């Protein structure tokens, strides 16, 4: 009932761990999979190790939302390859971040040899200079990065887009024309939190990315517009904290969806809880498969 295919990848269910959450250790990937996720996306991996920003890097807001500026901390592609090379269990997608096509060539070539299901190119991290969104706002650069990555792997390549300075549809079009197999939308939104007691911006980087329930309506709109315009599968992401949110994303046009922030509120049990909720919903509606939900809102 929940199984589906996305860009040629078979998944047991549509719930995917979003990049940036929990994603540096094979043991944790296996736990997330055992907790019910259909697939997991790693933290964004760069050419060399990155320590990220000094704490505070995560702020909890009211209303099931966070602002984070972790700063893309990751062990670098060589150490990460060693971490996951023996993976024989988890449908793992590796998120890549870099500043020019040669970074992606190197990383895709190396990680392609591990047992992963595909790549997700992070073109939308909103808080690290010269990486993520600064790259993703340039359609020419996007085209070049996607082409380079595609030519170094036969595995599906998704592109994760955000709401930056450039139009999300234009950037997605550039990525799809360059061969991207699908789009993940959206990343966090540039945001900040300032203490009214001592006037300090709280994050060490001052500006970070907003995630969680407060960005959900924006993400639903983006998924709706993307799926209206393009034929490639869209992975919805942004503020999904229960099965109702997940269903809304699929009806908006997402083929599957990612969950991250909600783990902080519901623990890792969130994956199974969303799956159970969708099954009940499908039964109540009399549907045979979760695939029947995809893009249903476009009929109206």
């Amino acid at each position, binding site marked *: 009932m929940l199984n589906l295919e996305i860009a040629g990848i078979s998944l047991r269910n549509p719930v995917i761990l979003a990049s940036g959450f*929990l994603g540096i*250790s094979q043991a944790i990937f296996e736990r997330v999979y055992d907790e019910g996720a259909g697939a997991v996306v790693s933290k964004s991996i760069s050419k060399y*190790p990155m320590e990220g920003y000094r704490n505070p*890097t995560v702020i*909890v807001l009211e209303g099931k939302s966070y602002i984070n500026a972790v700063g893309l901390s990751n*062990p670098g592609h060589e*150490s990460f390859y060693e971490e996951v090379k023996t993976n024989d269990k988890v449908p793992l997608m590796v998120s890549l971040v870099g500043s020019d096509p040669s970074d992606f060539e190197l990383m895709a070539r190396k990680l392609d040899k591990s047992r992963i299901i595909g790549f997700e190119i992070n073109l939308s991290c909103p808080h690290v200079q010269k990486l993520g969104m600064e790259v993703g706002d340039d359609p020419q650069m996007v085209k070049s990065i996607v082409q380079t990555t595609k030519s170094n792997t036969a595995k599906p390549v998704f592109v994760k887009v955000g709401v930056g300075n450039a139009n999300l549809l234009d950037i997605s079009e550039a990525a799809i024309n360059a061969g991207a197999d699908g789009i993940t939308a959206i990343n966090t939104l540039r945001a900040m939190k300032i203490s009214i007691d001592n006037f300090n911006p709280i994050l060490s980087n001052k500006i970070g990315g907003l995630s969680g329930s407060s960005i959900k309506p924006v993400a639903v709109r983006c998924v709706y517009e993307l799926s209206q315009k393009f034929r490639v599968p869209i992975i919805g992401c942004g503020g999904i904290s229960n099965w109702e949110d997940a269903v809304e994303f699929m009806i908006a046009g997402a083929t599957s969806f990612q969950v991250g922030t909600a783990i902080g509120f519901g623990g890792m049990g969130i994956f199974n809880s969303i799956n159970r909720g969708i099954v009940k919903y499908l039964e109540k509606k009399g549907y045979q498969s979760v695939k029947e939900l995809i893009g249903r809102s476009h009929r109206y």
Partner: protein
Amino acid sequence: MADHTDTDILRLVRIRKAIEETATTRTIVFDDEYSVASMPGQFLMVWIPQIEELPMSIGIESFENLKCAAVTVRKYGLGSTALYHKQVGEHIGIRGPYGNHFSIPENLRNVLLIGGGTGLVPLVRLFSDLVHDRIQTSLIMGARTKEEVIFQHKVQNLLADNKLNNCVAFSTDDGTYGFKGSTVDLAESILASKKFDMMYTCGPELMMKGVQKLGERFSIPVEASLERYMKCAIGICGSCCINDKLVCQDGTIFDSNSLRQLTEFGVSYRDKSGRSSYFISQK
């Protein structure tokens, strides 16, 4: 008490008192009802504005006859040194309490606590609770040298207040105070002549690994409070992972059964980037 998410939201607290423990260690005392209601072993994320946010074990101190929350910090890096220098009247930010806590099983009769350095914060709290519960407790307090011994007066006051046969023993690496050698060596010699039905430990990881081994050898259950590099404290970032566990959510306290499964315990840890490094083993 407010719900879980409320205590996740950063709150500013004013420093009421600062206690000089040693030349390099101070205890910072402040009001916070959630921390006062916390259990031994739980921790706070402490924000030093413009500098850092650090996980710190929650201690309890009295101020003007009221129970206050406290954190004990040894100046070491940028963040801990900045916190060390915070003065009465200044503010710090806190969120939490986070993590699980030491458990006190029913019918506990004879307990051994082994702590080193600021790892003694939760153990001295636990010592106080156990003594209060009239459970016979022995506490080993380790430091590198005499000048770094902390909480001595606090513990002696606790001993003076009770009638049971509780005891405290000190060990220093250089032998300038108490037993010369490690807390583990001292624990081993105590275990040779006395029976215990539980051991609790907090401090440097290789010390705790030593305690775990003693626990296996003498068939005594152990609870250890683990430390890993932490960012979020709410189970989302994965920085503090050890095997498939998150220290911030699944710990920080792990029991003997869990410790046995944690093959990285006493062996390796991840740095800020997530790469594994190895503890330098002392044979």
